[in-house]
């Protein structure tokens, strides 16, 4: 060995593999304005399409007059449901087994619903055209309150299915009912409640919100009449699924559809579904023979494409006097809006809401979810969470706090008493999941010690006394949340989308000089896949991450995958990468054995190549093996070094974490200040700690936004009141708290590299931590549960309801 031989540490460092805070590859282009987003796509002769939208929440469409619009300079076509009927596309299937109007067919069912699509030479002319389309409406009574949806005299919303007694998920109880989904043992749970020493019951609502990525939904469709090929650039989190959907509904051969997701400006669930804009742009391109661009504006984004949540959860917990939980009963009224367009795996009408037993060892539980139609926008996407998991986490984490209050017990102590214990894993929950791994006590204890939880409670007790003595008008809340996520959908035995199993895929191709390309079925929207996927490959096969190019989003070149949402990329595609890399490594070992003239079993892996056991100087690096694969493979072996893996996970993964929020609220103004927020996450093996920290910061900020202000609210007439950034709360750098992050590592036992996924945990755990902090602040004054969002006004209102505000005497 001479001095130039790199040390093991140097060789490891050169790879920039797993565990390394590798700087992002993507940033070179993004920091220079050289990203390529959909709206940046400009094709020769490209037209622009835009929607005429309904001002009414519920109305009959009597007539649409397009004559004047067609005379507007620049306007080339106006597409209506009648046009779409000629190609059988007036309605489209949804991911949830329902159908949705692409353009208003006879009636409109929510405000801002798509009524006609104007196609013009540029976006300004399209706007002029919209203003010239005349639509005659006959208003109908709107149905806004989901609790009134199944009243005997409720207005009929969906005339197309009003007489159908069965929906995609079984029997319907009413013409505005979509499905009932039940899980768990009802009888056993009833017994647990009958025998319970202590019970709580509370209606816990999770308001309607919207993912609102900074880039809205958009696409460019270009139909080539000669070749019969359709190319779509779009903001798609799941490009292959979009290709299959287009093939199925437009009856085009799938090989003639090219779907490209270029750079995406954030998704958070908003860009999973298929929206009328995509269909209309495609039809418009077929009709006009020109490429057509459709770009949503912000108001359209907030009011039409994919809301999230809107779950009203009646939550009951049974327990012993000592605080041991004995049963959980939850009924959810789910407001799905006008069409059931939830983006859930096919057999899961309420997603994985049955993770609602959370991190606690409930001996029995029962869950029933009723989905109903209302005159609101369709959607029901997983806004930075796995399917309905954040609703479930909010439900149980508020429930546990309410139980603690009733028992007069500390909420952290109650959690510690009921956690699933480390030796119980793999743990079978009462509602049917097999939790793969966890160590909840260690995480919770670490969190409590780091923030000096006992000290905080002492401070709070002193300040409550001071408040009662009238020395301060500020109250202090400590919000504890402990969440278990369920991500990585999913095993083909229980997860599919439109019949396609929810595997994911990776193809790796190594080049002769020791470089390579990896192509994936996933699609980054900011998660940094180009950086992290290469790190997994670097560790697995000893090629520096810098030498691996990662490519996603082109359905012609990437292997079929189900896309990126629900924190599934690392659990599913991350595993596919490792498996593809291991196939390559196995072949590389044969090449090395041949070259080094030993048996394969006499070789051992050493960072970036193979070494003969016991003969450390006999070593062959991966770079040389790449060359040999193309130059002189062993006799009888095919040249080349590449592999594909389609990974069907054996189970989901179950990341968890402990979050603690400390907040001060001024009761006279409702103004709150987040004093401290500590987040401990366990996402198993950590691929890039820098990116994990960034994901946690971002997820916590979205959780903060939801808990403290976001709401897509409708008035009684069905007017949407959260339709712009004036009304819909997106925190700026000024309001956003400072985040403290921490971790424990409990690798997933069934995942090839032990990783579990992290991007959505902070949203799932963050919302209850904030809400529990507000509720905890008010609890000593007799308050049990205050609904989100906890904005200043609502905090003030809560104080007023508790009689804390002195009304000025009437003049």
């Amino acid at each position, binding site marked *: 060995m001479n001095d130039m031989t790199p040390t093991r540490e140097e060789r490891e460092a050169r790879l920039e593999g797993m565990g390394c805070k590798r*700087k992002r590859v*993507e940033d070179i282009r*993004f920091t220079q304005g050289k990203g390529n987003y959909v709206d940046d796509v400009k094709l020769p002769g490209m037209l622009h399409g835009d929607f005429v939208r309904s001002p009414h929440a519920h109305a009959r469409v009597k007539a649409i007059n397009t004559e004047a619009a067609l005379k507007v300079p620049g306007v080339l076509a106006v597409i209506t449901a009648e046009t779409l009927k000629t190609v059988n596309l007036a309605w489209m299937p949804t991911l949830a087994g329902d159908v949705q109007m692409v353009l208003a067919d006879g009636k409109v069912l929510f405000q801002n619903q798509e009524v006609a699509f104007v196609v013009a030479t540029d976006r*300004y002319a399209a706007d002029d055209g919209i203003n010239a389309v005349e639509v005659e409406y006959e208003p109908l009574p709107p149905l806004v309150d989901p609790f009134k949806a199944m009243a005997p005299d409720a207005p009929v919303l969906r005339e197309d299915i009003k007489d159908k007694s069965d929906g995609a998920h079984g029997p319907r109880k009413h013409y505005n009912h979509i499905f009932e989904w039940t899980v768990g043992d009802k009888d056993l749970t009833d017994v647990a409640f009958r025998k319970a020493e202590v019970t709580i019951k509370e209606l816990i609502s999770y308001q309607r919100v919207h993912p609102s990525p900074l880039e809205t939904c958009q696409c460019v469709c270009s139909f080539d009449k000669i070749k019969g090929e359709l190319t779509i650039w779009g903001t798609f989190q799941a490009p292959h699924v979009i290709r299959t959907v287009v093939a199925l509904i437009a009856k085009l051969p799938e090989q003639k559809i090219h779907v490209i997701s270029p750079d*995406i400006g954030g998704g958070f669930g908003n860009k999973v579904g298929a929206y009328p804009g995509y269909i209309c742009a495609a039809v418009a391109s077929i009709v006009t023979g020109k490429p057509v661009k459709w770009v949503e*504006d912000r108001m359209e984004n907030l009011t039409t494409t994919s809301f999230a949540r809107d779950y009203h959860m009646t939550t009951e917990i049974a327990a012993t006097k000592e605080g041991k939980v004995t049963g959980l009963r939850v009924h959810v009224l789910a407001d799905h809006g006008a069409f059931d367009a939830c983006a859930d795996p096919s057999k899961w009408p309420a997603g994985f809401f049955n993770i609602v037993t959370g991190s606690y060892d409930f001996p029995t539980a029962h869950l029933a979810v009723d989905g109903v139609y209302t005159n609101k926008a369709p959607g029901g996407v997983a806004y930075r969470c796995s399917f309905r998991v954040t609703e479930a986490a909010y439900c149980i984490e508020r429930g546990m706090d309410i139980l603690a209050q009733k028992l007069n017990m500390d909420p952290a102590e109650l959690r510690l008493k009921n956690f699933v214990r480390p030796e119980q894993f793999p743990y079978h929950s009462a509602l049917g999941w097999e939790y793969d791994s966890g160590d909840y006590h260690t995480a919770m204890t670490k969190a409590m010690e780091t923030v000096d939880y006992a000290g905080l409670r002492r401070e709070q007790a002193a300040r409550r006394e001071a408040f009662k003595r009238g020395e301060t008008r500020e109250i202090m809340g400590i919000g504890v949340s402990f969440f278990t996520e369920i991500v990585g959908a999913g095993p083909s035995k229980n997860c599919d989308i439109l019949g396609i199993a929810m595997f994911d895929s990776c193809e790796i191709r190594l080049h002769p000089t020791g470089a390579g390309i990896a192509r994936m079925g996933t699609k980054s929207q900011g998660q*940094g896949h180009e950086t992290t996927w290469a790190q997994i490959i670097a560790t697995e096969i000893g090629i520096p991450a810098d030498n691996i190019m990662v490519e996603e989003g082109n359905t012609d070149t990437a292997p079929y995958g189900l896309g990126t949402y629900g924190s599934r990329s690392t659990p599913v595609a991350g595993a596919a990468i490792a498996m593809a890399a291991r196939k390559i490594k196995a072949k590389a070992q044969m090449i090395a054995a041949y070259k080094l003239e030993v048996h394969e079993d006499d070789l051992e892996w050493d960072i970036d190549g193979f070494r003969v056991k016991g003969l450390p100087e006999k070593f062959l690096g991966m770079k040389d093996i790449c060359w040999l694969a193309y130059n002189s493979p062993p006799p009888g072996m095919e040249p080349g070094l590449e592999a594909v893996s389609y990974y069907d996970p054996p189970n989901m993964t179950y990341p968890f974490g402990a979050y603690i929020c400390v907040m001060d609220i001024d009761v006279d103004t409702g103004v709150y200040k987040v004093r401290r927020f500590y987040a401990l996450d366990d996402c198993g093996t950590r691929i890039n700690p820098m990116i994990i920290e*960034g994901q946690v910061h971002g997820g916590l900020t979205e959780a903060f936004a939801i808990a403290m202000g976001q709401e897509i609210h409708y008035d009684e007439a069905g007017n949407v009141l959260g339709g712009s950034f*004036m009304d819909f709360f997106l925190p*700026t750098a000024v309001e956003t708290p400072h985040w403290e992050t921490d971790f424990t590592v409990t690798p997933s036992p069934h995942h090839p590299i032990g990783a579990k996924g992290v991007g959505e945990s902070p949203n799932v755990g963050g919302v209850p931590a904030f809400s529990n902090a507000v509720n905890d602040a008010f609890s000593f004054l007799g308050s049990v549960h205050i609904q989100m969002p906890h904005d200043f006004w609502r905090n003030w209102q809560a104080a007023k309801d508790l009689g804390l505000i002195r009304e000025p005497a009437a003049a």
Partner: protein
Amino acid sequence: MAKTHVTMTVNGAQVEGLVEPRTLLVHFIRENLQMTGTHIGCDTTHCGACTVDLNGMSVKSCTVFAVQAEGAEITTIEGMANADGTLSALQEGFRMMHGLQCGYCTPGMIVRAHRLLQENPSPTEEDIRAGIAGNLCRCTGYQNIVKAIQYAAAKQNGVEFKEAAE
């Protein structure tokens, strides 16, 4: 609609074009000049994705008509790199401190931060947070954006950047 002729200086180069009186500056930059680094994220002047530097001020180019920019000096994200093509201190800071994820807000953030550091070369964390309050980011939670700007300020001031203790 009748068109008006406009000329302005963008990233040091004289440019011109024909626009409708209602054409927004952001559309002129993105579509006429085909510089697509400047983004659009809202309709209500809230998000700042469209921020450009106009006559020495940070301006939301979605809220200015192209005709109002007649004769103006404009710098966009495409004009932010060093003269030799290397990343500027801010661009480098955003990368080193992981101040971006999807990258959609990033051009506006960097252009805004550039002006902020001209106005206040040694800002405190509070100054930075207030200084970028007109720019929304949905991905990062701002904490690393603040660090990125601190990194650039330190580099421009020739002092060592010490990451704020967590």
